């Protein structure tokens, strides 16, 4: 009896997997209704289930699968052509099989659910074909790998008679493989044989190439692995001191093997995201049908691997996002046509590894999210104040949808419903250390970006020293290492009023001191004679992390942190180093954010030069403060600044009334903020201090007297009208400071400057 239970359990697991595959296959079949390969696969799946149910005496299941199988055999043989109606009926059958299996799983019996109507539909559909032919009893298709000969015949490479002849030859003692005999008989070509062998191998790999293992067993293996590592460490250490050469060699080998074994065991827990995604084509199809929409689903990066536990955890949030996209994101066909789009909506899911994390994107080409609607809704629900809203940029406003109690669905649908909103998605992802972000363009679509840590994954990392402790930094974030020695150590780092920066090939690299960020800095820091800078990139922000020393790079195993530590956003996890001690893994993005670098990345400014409402900095944006001429203090949004440069006054060339400097391979037009050349400041200083800006992607140099500071800017107070070349004024460092409108300044200096971009210059002087 126990044996039977085991068989049933095995049957249930296998059938569930097969049904998932069936969903995908059926949806794929709709796109390609005549694919014999798909039809064959679907037929085999149903046939396998039917065969086992008969054996296990599940009569209802058997009757149902039998009806389905008969219908499928007609489709496969081309007697019937697939229609939407047939697909629908087959999908309904898959669901019915699922519910029967669920009943068996729960109670051991099929339950009382009656599927007579469905069976009748299936029978009726198969009779709706070419002729009401009598039930043909097909020989069962072989589920495992068929003999090569059969494959060749199946593909029309030889006839059945040829095959029988060849098999007879084998029976009477011909030792050659069947393919070879067929070729020598002249029945087929070598090409056909190798093709058939490939097909056969493919089928075998599906049938025999994998086994199913209980996750508990993998976990047990992991624990044992841990014990082995520790014992390995002890024996390696002991062998070294014992001085026995043979023992040392053996333990070195043990060391190597253990390390490899550890990686293999860890990788066993990884699964491609496709095991999650393969359910989505069906979800999208059904949902689209329910909403009266047609949606094309594209999946990119199916092979991206995630840890099994993470995979489980992202399943619900991901499905929710997909449902939302189909229900709310993508417009009804007519609305799409009116908007000049394809009637069929597009939903793209993308998975990839980046920044030591798994990135998932859910992107639709629907109506997008209107920030104004979101803002109004959030205000109405009392989630934000009008004052807070005024300070937010569009992206921040759109991200309000993640607040608890937020729902914009104008009508309640049975698909996404109300109540269970994006806040649940967000909090679900946060429990596994993930994060979600949304961006949207009205009329063009919405894109959700989910970042999940690679818990338990193996990543290459750089180990660094800080205040006596070792920390690991994922090398995906690593750009380069810079070491400043001797005089450079002090002179190389400039402090613009407390904000340390380093000039890396002309680029301003903001510096972050790791010991200060971690709060472990010595109270009275000694002047360092060397400075080690780890240049890091997180998303679009680049910064330099100052550490005490750089040790090495190694493959590390990311271990999750306990709940006590998850609120500290500085760590992405922990790892165990070669000597058995624990090291924390730094979260580079969090470091960048802690260092107040958020939002002022140069690359970002370059990518979206006019994002900030035509140069007007948003509240809280950093400003570069400089002096320009006697008593004049100006501020430039740091977003627009690409570099700070110094040029000898002699290098300035004059073309007409314009001043130019050769700058790398480009020509940099200069704009004097302090007035005409030859002003007081320049007389005794032959070098020009130039702030290089790139409004609209074109570079321009603003000549200032001195750079004073970088401040977290406040927007000029309301009522300040601004004026020619400046957006207004603010009090910075206790002085009235003009906030420069770089674009306007450039236009005034050179009205043709933007002509290359075909931007009409306003009627400036």
């Amino acid at each position, binding site marked *: 009896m126990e044996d039977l239970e085991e068989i049933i359990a095995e049957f249930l697991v296998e059938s569930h997997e097969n049904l998932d595959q069936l969903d995908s296959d059926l949806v794929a079949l709709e796109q390609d209704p005549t694919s014999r390969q798909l039809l064959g696969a679907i037929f085999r799946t149903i046939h396998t289930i039917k065969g086992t149910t008969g054996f296990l005496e599940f009569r209802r299941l058997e009757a149902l699968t039998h009806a389905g199988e008969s219908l499928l055999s007609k489709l496969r043989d081309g007697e019937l052509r697939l229609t939407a109606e047939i697909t629908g009926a087959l999908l309904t059958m898959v669901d019915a099989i699922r519910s029967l299996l669920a009943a068996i799983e729960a109670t051991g019996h099929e339950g009382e659910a009656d599927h007579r109507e469905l069976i009748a539909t299936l029978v009726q559909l198969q009779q709706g074909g070419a002729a009401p032919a009598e039930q043909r009893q097909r020989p069962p298709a072989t589920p495992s790998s068929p003999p090569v000969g059969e494959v060749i015949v199946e593909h029309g490479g030889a006839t059945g008679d040829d095959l029988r002849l060849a098999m007879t030859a084998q029976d009477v003692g011909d030792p050659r493989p069947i393919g070879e005999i067929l070729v020598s008989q002249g029945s087929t070509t070598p090409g056909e044989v190798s093709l058939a062998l490939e097909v056969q191998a493919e089928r075998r790999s599906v049938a025999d190439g994998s086994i199913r293992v209980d996750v508990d067993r993998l976990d047990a293996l992991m*624990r044992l692995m841990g014990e082995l590592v520790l014992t390995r460490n002890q024996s390696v250490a002991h062998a070294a001191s014992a001085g026995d050469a043979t023992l040392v060699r053996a333990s070195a080998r043990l060391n190597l093997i253990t390390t490899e074994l550890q990686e293999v065991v860890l990788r066993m827990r990884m699964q491609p995201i496709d095991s999650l995604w393969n359910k989505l084509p069906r979800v999208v199809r059904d949902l689209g049908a329910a909403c009266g929409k047609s949606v094309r689903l594209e999946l990119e990066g199916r092979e991206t691997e995630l840890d099994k536990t993470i995979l489980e955890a992202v399943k619900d949030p991901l499905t929710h996002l997909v449902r939302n996209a189909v229900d709310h994101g993508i417009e009804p066909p007519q609305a799409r046509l009116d908007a000049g789009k394809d009637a069929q909506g597009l939903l793209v899911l993308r998975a990839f590894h980046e920044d030591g994390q798994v990135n998932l994107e859910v992107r639709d080409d629907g109506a997008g999210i209107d920030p104004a609607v979101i803002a109004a809704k959030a205000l109405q629900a009392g989630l934000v104040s009008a004052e807070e809203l005024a300070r937010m940029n569009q992206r921040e406003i759109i991200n309000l949808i993640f607040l608890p109690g937020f729902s914009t669905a104008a009508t309640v649908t049975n698909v996404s419903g109300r109540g269970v909103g994006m806040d649940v998605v967000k909090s679900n992802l946060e429990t596994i250390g993930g994060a979600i972000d949304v961006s949207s363009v009205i009329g063009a679509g919405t894109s959700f970006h989910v970042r999940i840590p690679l818990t338990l994954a193996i990543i290459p990392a750089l180990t660094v020293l800080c205040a006596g402790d070792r920390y690991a930094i994922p090398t995906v974030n690593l750009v380069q290492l810079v070491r400043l020695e001797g005089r450079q150590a002090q002179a190389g780092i400039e402090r613009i009023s407390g904000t340390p920066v380093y000039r890396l090939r002309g680029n301003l690299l903001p510096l972050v001191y790791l010991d200060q960020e971690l709060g472990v800095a010595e109270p009275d820091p000694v002047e360092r004679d060397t400075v080690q800078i780890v240049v890091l990139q997180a998303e679009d922000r680049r910064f330099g992390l100052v550490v005490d020393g750089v040790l090495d790079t190694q493959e590390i195993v990311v271990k999750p*942190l*306990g709940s*006590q530590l998850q609120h*500290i956003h500085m760590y992405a996890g*922990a790892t*165990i180093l070669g000597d058995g001690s624990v090291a*924390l893994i730094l979260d580079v993005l969090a470091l960048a954010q802690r260092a107040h670098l958020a*939002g002022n990345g140069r690359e970002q400014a370059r990518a979206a030069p006019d994002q900030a409402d035509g140069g007007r900095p948003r509240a809280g944006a950093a400003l570069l403060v400089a002096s320009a001429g006697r008593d004049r203090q100006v501020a430039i949004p740091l977003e627009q600044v690409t570099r700070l440069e110094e040029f000898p006054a002699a290098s300035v060339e004059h073309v007409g009334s314009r001043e130019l400097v050769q700058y790398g391979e480009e020509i940099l037009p200069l704009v004097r903020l302090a007035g005409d050349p030859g002003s007081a400041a320049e007389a005794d200083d032959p070098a020009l201090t130039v702030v290089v800006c790139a409004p609209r992607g074109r570079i321009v140099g603003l000549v200032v007297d001195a750079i004073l500071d970088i401040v977290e800017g406040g927007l000029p107070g309301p009522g300040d009208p601004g004026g020619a070349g400046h957006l207004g004024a603010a009090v910075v460092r206790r002085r009235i400071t003009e906030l420069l409108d770089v674009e306007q300044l450039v236009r005034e200096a050179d009205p043709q400057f933007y002509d290359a971009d075909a931007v009409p210059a306003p009627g400036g002087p």
Partner: protein
Amino acid sequence: MSATQLSTFSVNGHLFGVEVAVVQEVIRFQPMTRVPLAPAALAGLINLRGQVITAVDLRRRLGFPEQAAGEPAMDVIVRTSDGPVCLLVDRIGDVVDVAQEAFEEPPETLGGIARELIRGAYKLDHALLLSLDVQRAVDLPPLGNGSGVVGATPM
């Protein structure tokens, strides 16, 4: 009469007990990695056979003074809803049977945080055994601001 078995250990002269089933193992003091920015009661992270485990210093957690330098601590690994956690204690005691009848409310003399982490006390012949609420003991409240929850609004 129902009896419970408690594993006992001492912290700052007080005798504490937790249910035997909660204790996974007891090991010698392990070297640990400190965690900057973490609550003070979080002593660090230890490597328990390849698993990274959070260690909670019970002296600090209970608001007791630091142990004199050089005094070895012991690691009690307890099972919690969030996986194993290591408790740093002064000394390990015996496993004792306690009768439910001997259970009392936490003693009045015990104040502050310690009182919140104690379920009650058992009167033994020679001492008072304090029953530690393990789950509460390992739930460390996050530090106030300054723990750096930046980026609440993704850029």
